[in-house]
């Protein structure tokens, strides 16, 4: 494998000496890598480890038998996709030599370097990767708890609630009804996600409930790819969507589940026929229990490696981390995963980690034959920084020649499907 050989050869004695002494003492042989969470971060890490560092012993601990992606969940709402088409099994990863354990990790002992499972078994590790995604902060919005979420679904964490709960309510909504959405402040999972959801719900309404309205109550004053989304909404769904930002009393602070009502900061009461509440979030429980999170509820990492800044020999990935300016996205989690595995392999061999380059693209579907994207290339040294002059959002209509606009949007919608197949193929194919 070129990659491991190169990393081994590139080792500088100075940096090697700076590494933790135990890893130097350990044999130059590969070690036991245990991964908690088989989502975008964890499954990508497992696949990459098997492909590039076959000598590593890889165990993946995932509580569920199947994984339903958040990405393309909004297309289920639109009626374009079925839940089955965005659900994957772990058989292929297992066939690639990953030991897949379907248990919940209940505790981590960083001294003994062991993970406890819900069945009581213990799994020893040399290096641990934790990519558990998010938990929802029940009660952060007054009265929004798990019971309330049955009436006012979030559809933001498939391992807590499948998107089909919201889908069903949408299909049963009365003609001309109002779909209300509560959107949280930063940081949260998938910054453009709520606005793609607005778009996909609008696409569904346009076909099946043309007099329906969408009212988005947002705890922020601006959002990801905002000019692109708003241009598209005006173009595709004129008059259907109202977005209220924080300075326009958009912040939802409480709900009344019986009345399907949101209460805003300044006590406006907004009733909907279907109400989608996306509550504030935090790192998944196992990360918080293991002392990987700080007071914010998210996990600080070393930007050069994604190793925990708080507990040694543990790497944290994906949505659970504090990684701004990188977004909490699946693509980001997967490039963090690959870099982390390369760093883990280097650290097990007592070598210097490779230079840190991370990457993200988030495509969003906003309508039929209409896709948009945001790109970022990031480097990790003492801090995480976005490479100046790179990345950014797709051009606005005003920046595209009139005869190229439709084609550009159409191509991005097609490429989005290419992205989805490529990244899920890498994880589960």
């Amino acid at each position, binding site marked *: 494998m070129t*990659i491991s050989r190169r990393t081994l050869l590139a080792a500088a004695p100075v940096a090697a000496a700076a590494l933790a002494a135990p890893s130097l003492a350990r044999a130059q042989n590969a070690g036991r890598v245990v991964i908690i969470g088989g989502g975008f971060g964890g499954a990508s890490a497992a696949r990459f480890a098997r492909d590039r560092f076959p000598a590593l012993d890889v165990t993946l601990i995932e509580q569920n038998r199947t994984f339903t992606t958040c990405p393309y969940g909004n297309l289920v709402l639109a009626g374009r996709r079925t839940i089955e088409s965005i659900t994957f099994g772990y058989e292929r990863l297992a066939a690639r030599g990953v030991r897949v354990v379907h248990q919940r990790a209940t505790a981590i002992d960083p001294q003994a370097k062991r993970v406890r499972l819900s069945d009581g078994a213990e799994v020893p590790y040399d290096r641990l990767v934790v990519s558990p995604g998010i938990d929802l902060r029940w009660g952060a919005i007054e009265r929004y708890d798990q019971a309330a979420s049955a009436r006012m679904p979030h559809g933001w964490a498939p391992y807590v609630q499948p998107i089909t709960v919201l889908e069903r309510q949408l299909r049963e909504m009365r003609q001309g009804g109002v779909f209300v959405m509560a959107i949280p402040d930063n940081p949260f999972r998938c910054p453009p996600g709520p606005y793609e959801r607005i778009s996909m719900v609008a696409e569904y309404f346009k076909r099946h409930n043309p007099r329906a309205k969408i009212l988005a109550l947002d705890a922020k004053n601006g959002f990801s790819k905002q000019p692109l989304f708003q241009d598209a909404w005006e173009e595709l769904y004129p008059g259907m969507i109202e977005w209220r930002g924080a300075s326009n009393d958009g912040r939802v602070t409480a709900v009344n589940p019986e009345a399907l009502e949101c209460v805003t900061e300044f006590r406006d009461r907004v009733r909907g026929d279907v109400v989608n509440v996306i509550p504030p979030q935090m790192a998944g429980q196992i990360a918080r229990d293991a002392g990987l999170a700080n007071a914010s509820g998210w996990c600080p990492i070393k930007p050069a490696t994604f190793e925990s800044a708080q507990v040694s020999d543990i790497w944290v990935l994906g949505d659970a981390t504090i990684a701004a300016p990188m977004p909490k996205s699946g693509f980001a989690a997967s490039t963090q995963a690959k870099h982390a595995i390369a760093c883990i392999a280097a650290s097990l061999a007592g070598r210097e980690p490779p230079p840190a380059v991370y990457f993200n693209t988030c495509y969003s579907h906003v309508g039929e034959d209409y896709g948009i994207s945001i790109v970022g290339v990031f480097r990790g040294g003492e801090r995480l920084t976005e490479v100046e002059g790179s990345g950014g959002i797709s051009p606005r209509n005003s920046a595209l020649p009139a005869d190229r606009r439709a084609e550009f949007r159409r191509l991005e919608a097609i490429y989005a499907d290419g992205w989805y197949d490529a990244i899920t193929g890498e994880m589960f194919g």
Partner: protein
Amino acid sequence: MRIPSLAAAALLACGTAAAQVPDGALLGSACAGCHGVTGEGGHGIPSIRQMHGREHFVELMRAFRANERPNTVMGRIARGYTEAEIAALAAHFARAQ
């Protein structure tokens, strides 16, 4: 700890990258997120798997960077990588995956 300015942090990051040979296989693993694990492409995303001689690959990336080649997304991507990294990517994708 002193918080470096953006420019200083960028210099620092570049310094680190320049001090080491860029790892083409690791850098190229990000491209897999759209082009597929082996660079095979799909849904209109072109294949980049052993398709191009190194020089042609570098030419393409330079043209994307300068927006001299029509693109939806590759310009924004290519501008994120250094010359040395593009050379390492070219070498990586020229090999059998």
